[in-house]
């Protein structure tokens, strides 16, 4: 039998551990990654000529980052590594990739999607101002370019990443004006039993918050964002919120980093025709998978935050597990003990992540009730009021129908940033539950594709 062709998409924590497990079984998988270097988002490597030490770059996660990078440094000789390569579409067990304007088709017997997650955003009035970034983008600027998104930065949102990025900015010497968390502190206390599933991580998180207080950064919880105010050139000037006591507070700044946890990147799973399910606890659509990471599409597996947001450490475990699932399905021997150990580890992360979702919920009513003048779809510049008007005038209460009439989700990002907020607005305007509104179908290309392509030599 010829060696099975296994393709891993993504070289973050899930993809690297997945590829490592496949290589250890004597296979040579193809590893396709959009990044210039391995590591993914959370363990993003700095450019070759940068020399900042791990401790400075990754803080509490330095040891994990170093271990992952060292693994891949060895692994890259054992895999067919294709960095800076986008899988823009797929069909019939063939992936279609583009790298530096050159097209290639890659066939597979097993496909393991480790595509990660991006920031989950809510449309705040003024969020499309110059100087408003996602938390992930704020972190990339720091890790990859060694620069801050502004001189005086406000962080707004909720979730562990809010505190992590703010702390990283403080550590890097940037001025953090305030950390504004939409979740009230009481929810954190209620979530404690679940969060204790990973006491070490909980401790790290508390340490980050404490560090912010020590650095003199105002940390407000239970805030309601009102506006990101703009100057004459459309630049960020201040952030206005209502605090937990109902008082309006304005924080002058020239940049905002915002985000409410993460949403899985699922377009490839969609193009692979995997089925989705609505996940009540995170209030978003996720790809159906079994506990090994098998999707409903034959030969397609999922791991990491692209499957379900459980964090980087869980991603390493689910990457290994999905590799074992694929190996087992291809008739290779797989250790039951290894599988059981990984499943147990993931169960603990699952409980911890449930605690995080409880402590730092996605404020869906914020999206649903954003003022009419707020731009929802930044690519097409469509406001919440325009979307509501379309829903009222046409009765369109399904996401793709409302997209067809309103253009929300029709631009470059294809709804990756506005899809969930748009669905909340449609649900609210039509009086239907958000799961009934559905989700925007994934359409190729996953990211914009040049019309002019060179064929593979």
């Amino acid at each position: 039998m010829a060696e099975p062709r296994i393709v891993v998409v993504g070289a973050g924590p899930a993809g690297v551990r997945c590829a490592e497990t496949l290589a250890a079984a004597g296979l040579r998988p193809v590893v396709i990654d959009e990044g210039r270097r391995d590591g993914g988002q959370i363990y993003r490597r700095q450019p070759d000529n940068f020399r900042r030490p791990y401790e400075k770059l990754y803080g509490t996660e330095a040891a994990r980052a170093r271990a992952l990078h060292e693994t891949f440094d060895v692994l890259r000789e054992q895999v067919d590594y294709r960095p800076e390569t986008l899988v823009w579409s797929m069909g019939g067990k063939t992936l279609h990739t583009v790298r530096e304007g050159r097209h290639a088709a890659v066939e597979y017997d097993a496909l393991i999607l480790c595509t990660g997650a991006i920031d989950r955003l809510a449309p705040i009035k003024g969020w499309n101002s110059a100087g408003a970034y996602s938390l992930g983008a704020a972190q990339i600027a720091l890790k990859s370019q060694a620069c801050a998104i502004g001189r005086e930065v406000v962080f707004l949102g909720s979730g562990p990443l809010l505190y992590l990025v703010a702390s990283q900015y403080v550590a890097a010497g940037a001025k953090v004006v305030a950390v504004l968390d939409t979740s009230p502190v009481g929810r954190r206390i209620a979530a404690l039993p679940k969060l204790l599933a990973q006491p070490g991580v909980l401790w790290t998180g508390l340490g980050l918050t404490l560090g912010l207080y020590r650095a003199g950064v105002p940390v407000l919880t239970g805030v309601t964002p009102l506006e990101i105010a703009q100057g004459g050139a459309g630049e960020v000037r201040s952030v206005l919120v209502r605090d937990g006591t109902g008082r309006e507070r304005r924080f002058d700044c020239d940049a905002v980093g915002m985000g409410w946890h993460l949403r899985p990147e699922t377009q490839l799973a969609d193009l692979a025709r995997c089925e989705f399910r609505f996940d009540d606890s995170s209030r978003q659509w996720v790809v159906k998978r079994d506990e090994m990471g098998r999707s409903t599409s034959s030969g397609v597996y999922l791991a990491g935050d692209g499957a379900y947001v459980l964090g980087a450490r869980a991603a390493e475990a689910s990457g290994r597990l999905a590799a074992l699932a694929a190996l087992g399905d291809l008739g290779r021997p797989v250790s039951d003990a290894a599988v059981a150990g990984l499943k147990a580890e993931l169960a603990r992360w699952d409980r911890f992540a449930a605690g995080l979702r409880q402590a730092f919920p996605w404020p869906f009513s914020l999206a649903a009730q954003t003022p009419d003048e707020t731009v929802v779809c930044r690519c097409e510049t469509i406001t919440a009021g325009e979307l509501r008007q379309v829903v009222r005038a046409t009765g369109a209460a399904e996401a793709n129908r409302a997209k067809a009439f309103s253009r929300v989700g029709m631009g470059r990002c294809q709804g990756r940033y506005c899809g969930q907020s748009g669905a909340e607005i449609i649900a609210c305007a039509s009086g239907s539950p958000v799961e009934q509104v559905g989700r925007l179908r994934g359409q190729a290309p996953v990211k914009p594709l040049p019309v002019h392509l060179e064929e593979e030599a």
Partner: protein
Amino acid sequence: MRPSEHVADVVIIGAGIVGSSAALFLRRRGRSVILLESGLVGQQASGVNFGNVRRQGRPMAQLPIANRASPIWRELKTLLGEDVEYLEAGHLRVCYRDRPEMADSFVDYAREAAQTGLELEVLTGNALRARFPFLGPEVIAGSFSARDGHANPRLVAPAFGRAAARAGAAVFENTMVTSAEKVGEDFHVLAQDGRIFRAPVVLLTAGAWAGDFSAKFGEPVPLVTRGPTMSVTEPVPYAIGPGVGVATPLESETVYFRQITRGNVIIGGSTRQDVFPEIRRAYVEPPNTLSQLRQIQRLAPGLGKLNIIRVWSGIESYLPDSLPVVGPSRHVSGLFYAFGFCGAGFQTGPAMGDIMAELIDTGATETPIDFCGVDRFQAADAA
């Protein structure tokens, strides 16, 4: 009448552009109408097509239908009470150097078309290039139709559906018809959930799904389903007025584009894909997109600098002679057909609705449609 039973003068099965415009025009003639749609109005071929509102290039016999559609498009905003982004920016049909016979055919076509009222201007060489500088070096001739244009297909049929509803048509979406049969003087049209719709007249405008019904009425047609290949680029400053397409006998070479005023360039054509009408889905096969992107750069090399941001397909129905099935049933009185528009039914859609309304209302139409008869395939088989 039971609560689950609905009665009207006409039941229309399929709410694409033809069914929904027929509903509106029948209401304007005072007929009561039930419009049934298995999904949502205008979601299939009517909603996913390229959006060409083009008369030129059609078979000469179709031009009277296309010409009848032209004034409707111009008045559509008034008729529907909403904007469907109709832009009368012209249509340019060109041919490549290696098919010089196409250039000759443009001249002949323009002469014949003029007799039906369609004015075309054939351009070659420097005159063509001066006027349309974006054309590639292989292009040698073009036929320009100033009074054609393009519109947004996602908006048109749903707007017709809403206008029909406002005019009093009973529009039922998410209503899957499982059977239609004639009982005495009336047709009984049965929905999956048990509802019954009754009328002395049925108009079948169900596109790719119409073949099963016509076969059950004893009039099978060799209908095949295919999915068009469509792409759209990121927006760039608006610069290209007309829709532009290549005239060629090769499917893979057939490619066309138009720019909307928002700036995006919509690209269609080249090879088509298999589709899945039973689940109402069509998936773009990536090699078809790649073929399209290669071909579009022959037509307009400058587009090579853009990025496409989205591709899509849909479910269209085709017949061997590339003509639709239009007109009364030859077997069953009160049954009318208008389907199988072979990827070219958008421009003629509103006129087809108008013609079917006229035919149902008066028993005849002033626009010749006999060449689209449902029995033409049986006749061919017999011969």
